[in-house]
């Protein structure tokens, strides 16, 4: 399908990226000197305490924030151009489904805005509903679904227009641990089936280690990268991989990275 040149091109590339907010109390350095290359098909987690810039970085990739220094490309384009090229889907912490639309109607929303034909909308909605195991729930309204199912629907909505990159900002942060485990497993499954590039913000160490091929450890004031860990874990990951020595070693390294960034100082 894709030619080799496109495969070699990184999905997201940041060089000396900086973002400074001007506030009444003076400038706030949300990001400073962030250099990072995310390859195609990677699952990259961003972990760090509040204020470390992990969400700001993700929002910059989605052109929701505009960096003040350095360069950032998404699929080789500026983020604004990448958005118009439908390069990414974004999943927020809250599902944010419209209460006045059915689940199918919610997934149809980006397709309507992007001007897909009615027949294609129907076909895509049915396909992504199956992908997130919500087949048969299309005609339900959001309030009829559990929180976990709502978040699955919001992932389906982000997948509906076939973006190569999925940006997820603490998507499971508001869910209980049992649901979260299940959704983590499903997300890995979905990732291996679709081959998407995923950028995933979290502040759970086990979640980051379980899901990622690379873990970016960040630290606040100013928001910066303190460590980038290439996971030695295999791509195929049953839930009980979390009890293996390799998993615990990676977790330990993430924890050390957080400590080195003084992230535990409050």
């Amino acid at each position, binding site marked *: 399908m894709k030619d080799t040149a496109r495969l070699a091109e990184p999905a997201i590339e940041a060089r000396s990226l900086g973002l400074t907010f001007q506030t009444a109390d003076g400038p706030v350095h949300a990001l400073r000197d962030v250099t990072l290359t995310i390859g195609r098909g990677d699952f990259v987690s961003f972990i760090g305490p509040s204020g470390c810039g992990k969400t700001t970085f993700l929002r910059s990739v989605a052109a929701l924030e505009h960096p003040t220094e350095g360069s950032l490309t998404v699929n080789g384009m500026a983020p604004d151009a990448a958005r118009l090229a439908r390069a990414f889907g974004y999943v927020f912490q809250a599902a944010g489904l419209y*209460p006045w639309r059915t689940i199918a109607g919610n997934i149809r929303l*980006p397709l309507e805005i992007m001007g897909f034909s009615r027949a294609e909308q129907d076909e895509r909605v049915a396909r992504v509903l199956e992908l997130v195991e919500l087949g048969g729930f299309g005609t339900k309204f959001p309030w009829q679904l559990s929180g976990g199912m709502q978040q699955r629907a919001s992932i389906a909505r982000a997948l509906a227009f076939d973006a190569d990159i999925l940006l997820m900002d603490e998507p499971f942060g508001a869910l209980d641990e049992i649901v979260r485990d299940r959704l983590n497993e499903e997300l890995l499954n979905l990732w291996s089936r679709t081959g998407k590039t995923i950028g995933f913000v979290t502040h759970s160490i086990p979640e980051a280690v379980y899901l990622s091929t690379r873990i970016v450890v960040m630290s606040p004031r100013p928001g910066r990268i303190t460590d980038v860990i290439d996971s030695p874990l295999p791509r195929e990951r049953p839930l009980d991989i979390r009890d293996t020595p390799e998993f615990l070693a990676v977790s330990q390294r993430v924890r050390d990275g957080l400590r080195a960034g003084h992230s535990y100082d409050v």
Partner: protein
Amino acid sequence: MKAVLPVSVVIAAIVVLWYGAAVWMNAAWVRDQAARAGETPGFAQIVPQTLNQERPVLPAPHQVVSELWKGVAGQAVTSKRSLVYHGWITLSATLLGFVIGTGAGILLAIGIVHNRAMDLSVMPWAIASQTIPILAIAPMIIVVLNSVGVTGLVPKAIISAYLSFFPVVVGMVKGLRAPDAMQLDLLRTYGASQRQTFAKLRMPASVPYLFASLKVGVAAALVGAVVGELPTGAVAGLGARLLSGSYYGQTVQIWAALFAAALLAASLVALIGLAERLTLRRMGMGR
């Protein structure tokens, strides 16, 4: 069904209080009459005479009910004594004013939400407009419009619109701004235009707010229509019934007209409530 008992207790309490007040307030006239006749009636003789006077200070509930019944069912609907006739005149001005006010309110709200200059310039005027007593401004509107040849329904409807646009503006501004930053960001990631954001997010999100505003607005529109009928010299409408009742000391007529207006307002609010339930259920937001 659990509410039946408390509701009937409250209604019964109001009726009892009302009867008590009627006896107390109308007794002076009974004593006056008796004094002139050189009698000193006891309490048991005073009570029945307080409840069936022709021009009581406070009419008893059954007098108001019978006057209402006479006004609604006891006349041809075309008669000048018919409350249906007067009610229709007021209702038509109310509805026309309500439609104008709602339309203007929605348009202003859309402008205010999308344009910062309008937000800063229109909102203070809208608020100021509601601080002026409607009784002061209504005669001026009637007179000014009369002088340019506009009479009848339209001036009253404009006063109705003047009162009913405000809750719609306030409610719709709130409703159109109800979507949070996350929902707006989501549409930005789709590259949605301002028009699409309005049609797909802001407008549907504002519907529950719109209905809350419409309920306040329709009641205000009725008040506007009644007030608009007062300075025209009591020709027709519930306001006219109120005014002619007070000219001739017909307290029962005043109270009957008041209740007719209240019933009309309650029915209008109930109709909007019904439309609200049906719409929200259709939108999947009714439970």
